[in-house]
């Protein structure tokens, strides 16, 4: 296999195709700290794209409750186990060896799905990317174990299966919203024997050419995130298309000025957990330095948002701000060694980071650039740091202004003076 560079794992790796990069790359940041699992994004996607016959099991966007939920069930645990089997005790990071551009999280010294397929072929037969084909049962329940945190005593009486025997598990769970990550080195693309999958050069969106697809389901097998899905009525696979008509600004209702707009799932998010956009990519695959692009700022500059399972090796372009209350070992497995830094920054954001965080779902047009108008200090609040200790955070009356592709101002969000509610029992003698 040719060698390509993957900055998320800090090294070159095998990939079935030679290295090529789009001019721009579709990317997004989700903030699971805020997600309430309302599934509005899921329904927005379902009602837009996957509503017809043969697509009953297909949910391009889904929200699963971690650690137990998954669609298909246990997709991540299964692949992690296969990688562990291929490289026992070797799936490790050399986190100390860092470089801001080429290896911001250190170097992953274990096997990616492409390395494992090449070096440790499965007894079932050769693969381009290590993977498995989920059984029908595993697709059957998109929201299985939703809201499941602990054993029986914590479950809603009578509403969920009382026969589910879970260990005593102190209260923690979080919602993981997922769409196709439109990876830089997609497992689906690398696995397709028909070369029916391609990345668009203008925005890096990964699409399936339905006229070439013959429904071999190798993409379903090879996508580590299981975001390529087989449709039995057409005998072809389908996947998230990143709502590309909206990205292109081609919808006259949504984009009367032809300015690119966010996808349906992003626009529908009521919890304001999503920020989506496009980042400029250099010819060598690194992101062109653009610190006023909110995605570049959050992902590359501040590293507050991290890729999902970077060790799989596909260089996914979906990024997550790790949920702060979740045990660190679990998060490190899911988001890599950048978790400590990301949570530390997010727990007590400085004034610029706090301002940029206000851009999430502030407008449905894609924000290409932001500016900040600084205001005076309006207060101090106390925040909880990852170690459980309190820290004082200063708040400023700053305004963040978002600009679209045409450099027109589309939104401005101002942080105002905080309000405090004092607990009544502390002031029993007050009038």
């Amino acid at each position: 296999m040719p060698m390509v560079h993957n900055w998320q794992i800090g090294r070159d790796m095998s990939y079935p195709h030679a290295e090529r990069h789009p001019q721009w790359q579709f990317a997004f940041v989700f903030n699971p700290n805020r997600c309430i699992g309302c599934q509005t994004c899921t329904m927005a996607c379902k009602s837009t794209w996957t509503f017809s016959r043969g697509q009953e099991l297909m949910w391009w966007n889904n929200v699963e409750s971690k650690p137990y939920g998954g669609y298909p069930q246990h997709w991540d645990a299964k692949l992690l186990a296969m990688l562990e089997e291929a490289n026992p005790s070797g799936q490790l990071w050399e986190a100390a060896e860092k470089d801001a551009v080429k290896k911001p999280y250190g170097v992953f010294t274990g096997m990616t799905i492409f390395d494992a397929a090449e070096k440790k072929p499965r007894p079932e037969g050769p693969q381009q990317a290590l993977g498995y084909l989920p059984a029908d049962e595993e697709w059957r329940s998109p929201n299985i174990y939703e809201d499941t945190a602990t054993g029986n005593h914590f479950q809603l009486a009578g509403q969920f299966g009382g026969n589910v025997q879970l260990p005593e598990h102190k209260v923690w769970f979080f919602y993981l919203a997922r769409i196709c990550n439109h990876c830089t080195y997609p497992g689906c693309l690398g696995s397709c024997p028909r070369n029916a999958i391609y990345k668009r050069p203008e925005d890096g969106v990964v699409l399936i050419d339905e006229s070439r697809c013959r429904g071999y389901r190798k993409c379903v097998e090879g996508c580590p995130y299981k975001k390529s899905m087989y449709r039995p009525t057409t005998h072809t696979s389908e996947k998230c298309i990143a709502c590309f008509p909206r990205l292109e600004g081609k919808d006259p209702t949504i984009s009367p000025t032809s300015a690119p707009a966010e996808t349906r799932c992003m626009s529908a998010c009521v919890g304001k957990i999503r920020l989506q956009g496009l980042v400029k990519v250099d010819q060598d695959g690194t992101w062109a330095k653009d610190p006023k692009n909110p995605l570049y700022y959050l992902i590359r500059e501040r590293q507050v948002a991290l890729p999902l399972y970077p060790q799989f090796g596909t260089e996914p372009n979906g990024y997550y701000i790790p949920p702060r209350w979740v045990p660190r070992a679990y998060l490190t497995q899911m988001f890599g060694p950048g978790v400590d830094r990301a949570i530390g920054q997010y727990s007590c954001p400085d004034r610029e980071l706090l301002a940029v965080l206000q851009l999430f779902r502030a407008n449905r047009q894609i924000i290409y650039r932001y500016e900040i108008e600084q205001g005076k200090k309006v207060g101090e609040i106390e925040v909880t740091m990852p170690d459980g200790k309190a820290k004082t955070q200063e708040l400023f009356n700053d305004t963040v202004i978002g600009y679209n592709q045409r450099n027109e101002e589309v939104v401005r969000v101002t942080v105002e003076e905080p309000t405090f509610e004092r607990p009544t029992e502390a002031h029993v003698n007050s009038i």
Partner: protein
Amino acid sequence: MSETTEVIGTPKIHPSSREILPDDPLEMHGLEVRGDPELMLRMLVEEYARIGWGLDQIMQLAGDPNYSAFHGLSQALGKDELRRRIGNILSRCGVIRVRAVEAAATTEYLVQIDKPAK
């Protein structure tokens, strides 16, 4: 007329009272990863405070079984105790307020559809 209690056909058993079958593909096998409910509560409350939610709004979530995190904490701790704890957290972290102004739609691009074109 005599009443009969004889059950005909396969008896109906609610899934929650059914025996677990070892080969059930949907059966969960969970591993314990210890967490800290107090830390989760503090961080969830801070998170909602960051988007401008106050005590009453957060307590409304706790009363709704569809929002399992807060509702579960409410059941585990009791409603009054949860309210007290959330109040204490909010008294320290405050509720952040933001004001968002979206740019007005540019009317020159809008198409008038109720008048026929000349």
